């Protein structure tokens, strides 16, 4: 499944699932360079960062921001 890291609380990554429910994942289970906003692929317990999807998502959000900010 794919989740997006919303924020970190101490050793926990609070992640958003596709249905917008939140899922807590221990930081130790993530790749060491995982950061807020990263899209993670969770496959059979293995977690990796989907760099391409993360970049595309960021672009989409930035465009929306540019459109809306005065």
């Amino acid at each position, binding site marked *: 499944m794919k989740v*997006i890291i919303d924020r970190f609380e101490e050793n926990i990554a609070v992640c958003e699932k596709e249905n917008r429910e939140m899922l807590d994942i221990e930081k130790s289970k993530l790749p060491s360079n995982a950061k807020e906003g990263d899209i993670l692929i969770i496959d059979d317990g293995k977690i990796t960062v989907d760099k391409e999807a993360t970049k595309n998502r960021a672009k989409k*959000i930035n465009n*929306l*921001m540019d459109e809306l900010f005065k």
Partner: protein
Amino acid sequence: MNRLLKSFNTRKSNYKIHIIILSLLISLTLIGCEMIVPTSGDLPDDNVVVNVDGQLTVHFIDVGQADAILIQNKNQAMLIDAGNNGDGDLVTEYIKDLGINKLDYVIGTHPHEDHIGGLDIVIASLEIGEVILPKVTSNTKTFEDVLNSIKNKGLSITEAVVGSTFNLGDAKNLIIGPNGNDYSDKNDSSIVIKLTFGKNSFIFTGDAEEKSEHEIIEKGFDLSADVLKLGHHGSHSSTSIEFLEKVNPSIAIAMCGVDNKYGHPHIETLDKLKSKGIQFYRTDELGTIIITSDGNTIKVNGKEETIVNEKKEDDSSNSDNSNSNSENTNGLTIENFTDVVNRGDNATVTIKGNPDEEYDITVYYSSGASSSKDLERKISDNNGNITWTWKVSSNTKPGVYKIKIEGYGETLEKQFEVK
């Protein structure tokens, strides 16, 4: 010829009318922009007390492990954050049950789910005046939903600018943070607001942490307030001693969920509040907390609270715009002090007292006064300065401790934090 002249005059007067209408439209548009944004280096005078009307009500809405704060005065209302994703309906119903159909200002302090989660539903369900956000993004669908709800309403977003002000009835709001926009931790990009209503004031911090708190202090704002909404749900990464001393609140509020898995509010924060005798209220224990002010007296859930106004009237260090770390107690001052120290590191304090006089220092840990050889009586130099440096043992339990300096008939106490 006459007919030609007549049509020419009509066209001229049409042109005149168009100019008048255009000018009116332009001035109306300018009047419509309510937020006053300062030019750089221009901080508003926040020492002026305004006569206020009626009551200010601040609702710290219980949304579990999240923030949602509704503020009302006269017939205006503003909302700071709207809880988690699943809290949108709860917050909307709470607002509507009060007979409120319009939010003049909606503030999303920062793009984390426990702050802006419910904002999409609130924006879609009520009439909205102005939306204020920091120019910081999140990749989540939760955040995208908020942006889309703003777009669907045909609204635009006002970027939070430090130093800008806006009024809510007779309450004045001043944006004092964030003072940067490229933080690795988005918590520090939280919008921080000081609200003043007559003689009472509040600081709303979002999830701002020590870094942001320090930057706010460096900016030189008068941070003294009666009520402090603790940053980041009372986490130990917020509410530094220096910030707490600058705000000097009588009342602190933590918005957190029952048995939340992050341990909020953290014990280190609770210890700081306790050592300063600050009245503390938390939504996990009390549910929604309602604070009212008539510009003079503050009530929490209907009960009048003691506000130590004397602290504000003669406390000149709080309205001091300098960046100096000095703290005065008669003729004995602290010139320099490490108020946060890591275990195993050295702590240091420099005082300025009377020249060529003996001063004692005592450092109090859980086990009592330290007997370190570095903390012995010293004689000040001919400028009145003494520096003590001592090692904070790596076995020290993280928390808040006290130092006391005595000499020449004067005593000075200061707290420091061990991490």
